[in-house]
């Protein structure tokens, strides 16, 4: 493990790893959910928590240069005096780092309207696997050449170690309104989601929580979430005051048409913050139900939400597991959450089985493996279900172009044997793998 304080120390660490042929992996706050920062093969862990300086905030160009260890929420707080904020807001935003956000192309409730991390990163300073320090992307709106920045964001540390990030900051909206709709059936909530988007409204955020998670969250925050609802929708609208008012009325009507029992509008900032605190604490709050959880991350077309959700609850019933759903409904980004107690024999197997079945159901419905958590080690071996060998080979070649040594966070994202015809670098191929 090492704790660099600046880019030169990162460079020294990478060079040392390269010299000794040791793999290396960068780690931010360790809040990742797909194991992207988990060190495999006794890798050198480069911990970025001491590189936590906000180097510059430029309110005129609405950008900021930050070190990778800066916490997501700290950046928004630092930008607040300028009337600006950093848009991607993962549930872990108070704890997760910008470097980790870049690695996983993190999302968050407010990415529905404003896009995920990649839409907010202009440039990255990185140390590549051979120890070269380089800048990828730039401050100009359209950098010449290939968009390597787009390649780098979401690469989960397999292309290099991030040492600095130039982010875009967005102006705070003039008006914000948060609505809480509660339903007596999950289907009604899901059809309301499609209804809102079909009406041409793009809320800043559109989140859904099912009955059990709503109760767990309410126990923690006491925000007045209805304990007897089968599902709730948290909708946030922002923009000019008149537009927000009109959209709020429209959503009220769409909700009631689709069976919403009540539509509550947050009266003030404090109530709004409390509602969001509930949504963002959801994953942690489940320990009030059982000690362990397995959280999935998959995306399905919005129109398929009703069917896929039904299938997910069926899988849970088949495997005798408790399943909850709390997710970014607006972009069809599901987060099925299996809660369990690993101390009960046989539970692990059922949990894993259910997890794979859920992802298969999502893929069958035209979805993908990950919305925002990344692939890491968790979903690496499922990549073959989504991509053909040719696709995987192309991606493996891309990684190789950045890192011929294969030492940058090896055995992540791509399954062993992704490279056609020959063994990719030093990547070991486990037994029974097809090539």
């Amino acid at each position, binding site marked *: 493990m090492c704790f660099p304080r600046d880019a030169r120390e990162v460079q020294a660490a990478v060079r040392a790893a390269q010299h000794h042929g040791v793999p290396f992996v960068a780690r931010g706050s360790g*809040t990742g959910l797909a194991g992207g920062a988990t060190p495999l093969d006794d890798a050198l862990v480069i*911990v970025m928590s001491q590189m936590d300086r906000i180097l510059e905030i430029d309110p005129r160009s609405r950008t900021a240069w930050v070190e990778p260890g800066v916490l997501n929420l700290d950046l928004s707080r630092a930008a607040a005096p300028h009337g600006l904020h950093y848009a991607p807001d993962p549930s872990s935003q108070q*704890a997760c780092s910008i470097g980790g956000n870049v690695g996983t192309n993190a999302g968050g409730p407010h990415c529905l309207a404003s896009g995920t991390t990649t839409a907010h990163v202009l440039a990255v300073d990185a140390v590549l696997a051979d120890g070269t320090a380089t800048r990828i992307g730039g401050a100009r709106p359209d950098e010449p050449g290939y968009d390597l920045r787009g390649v780098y964001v979401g690469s989960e540390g397999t292309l290099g170690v991030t040492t600095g990030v130039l982010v875009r900051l967005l102006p705070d909206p003039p008006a914000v309104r948060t609505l809480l709709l509660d339903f007596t059936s999950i289907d009604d909530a899901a059809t309301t989601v499609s209804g809102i988007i079909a009406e041409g409204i793009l809320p800043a955020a559109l989140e859904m929580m099912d009955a059990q998670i709503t109760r767990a969250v309410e126990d923690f925050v006491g925000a007045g979430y209805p304990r007897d609802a089968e599902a709730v929708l948290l909708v946030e609208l922002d923009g000019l005051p008149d537009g927000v008012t009109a959209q709020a009325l429209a959503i009220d009507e769409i909700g009631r048409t689709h069976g919403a029992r009540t539509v509550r509008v947050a009266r003030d900032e404090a109530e709004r913050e409390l509602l969001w605190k509930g949504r963002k604490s*959801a994953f942690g*709050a489940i*320990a009030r139900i059982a*000690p*362990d*959880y397995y959280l999935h991350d998959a995306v399905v077309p919005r129109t398929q939400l009703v069917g896929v959700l039904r299938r997910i609850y069926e899988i849970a019933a088949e495997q005798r597991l408790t399943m909850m759903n709390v997710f970014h409904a607006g972009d069809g980004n599901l987060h099925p959450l299996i809660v369990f107690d690993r101390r009960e024999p046989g539970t692990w197997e059922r949990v894993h089985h259910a997890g794979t079945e859920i992802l298969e159901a999502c893929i069958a419905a035209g979805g993908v493996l990950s919305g925002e958590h990344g692939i890491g080690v968790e979903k690496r071996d499922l990549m073959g279900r989504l991509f053909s060998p040719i696709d995987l080979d192309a991606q493996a070649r891309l990684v190789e172009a950045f890192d011929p040594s294969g030492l940058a966070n090896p055995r992540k994202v791509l399954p062993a044997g992704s490279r056609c015809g020959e063994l990719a670098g030093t990547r070991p191929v486990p037994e029974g793998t097809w090539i």
Partner: protein
Amino acid sequence: MNGLRMTTRGALGLDPDELVACVSCGLCLPHCPTYRVTGLELASPRGRIAAMRVVDSGAAPLDAVFVRAMDECVQCRGCEAACPSGVPFGHLMESTRAAIAPRRPRLRRFVETLGYRGVLAHHRVLVAVSWLLLVAQRLRLVPRRYAATLPRLDMRRLALRLRVPAGGTPDVWLFTGCVMDAWMRETHIAAARVVRATGARPAVPGRGGDCCGALHVHAGRTDDARRLARRVIASMPGAAPVLVDSAGCGAALRDYGHLLGTPEAAAFAARVVDISSWLAQQPPLPLRPGGGRVVVQDPCHLRHVQRDHAGVRTVLGPAYELVETDDDALCCGAGGAYAALQPALANDVRARKVAALARTGASVVCSANPGCTIHLRAAGLEVRHPVELLADALEESPR
């Protein structure tokens, strides 16, 4: 479900249900003062729980690295307030310290036993030791390592007299405690004045109310703490509220139900109230407005442990312009005896706090805990207790 579960205790004797409650989500990290200044996982609540797990299960030894990681925790419990899973981190840490205590070096155990049992538990001894310390400070006999962390004692302060009757049947009890009553009696004097201004008759505890045992619990000396708790409960009989002007003591007194596990202790704990909270429930005091800008620095044991920090703002609001820090109410690094035991980390944590306090532009800091006050004063800040600020603003003349 719990009844069916195996609940064998491990090497640290921790409650397995408390231990598994952590899902390692990491939301506690930014609320941990030692993680904030070091960036080290082992200096974070999540890392400490992971370490407790492996040591408790026997997968790793109870070695010096583990003891250091546990000792570095300030026990501010900011993580507990931030934890969506409701992990009782304070209890886990107290149990762990209790498991470590018998393994400390013999000399340290001897000195600690002397301090915790001989001095803190007997108020007259503590006062005598304080006078000795004062003389030693004047003669520059205090080792440099401690000189910076101990407050410079003041002869006039030590000589102050608190004119409040002891025992009897008062309207309210004013708990005075150990170190605070010896070194910061001016706070108790102000507290008594403010209480009398409401029309209530205060009394200090009768025999045995010397020390609440908070420092003993933090150090893992649970048996000592229980002994003190029984004495304290006996020293304040009846049903009158027990007002506390030290957040650390208040948190400990309110936890007596858990510490002793008896209905009497739980009933006593329910009578304990922070003095500002109690004042906030009385008719408003006649206060002069325009007292200047004051930044409220909530002691962790008031905000995170007692979760009772609104009262200060209610009572001071009419007299002062109150401002808040922008650092999520992070700990100042005092932590009872922590500042003396871990001076380097305590100073790093304090530096962060001092910067946050400075950003508010207030020249006076308000703190309701003696440990925080001493620690922050040592950084050159003007720190006052809420009741002192209230006493200053009272309309009527002092006597």
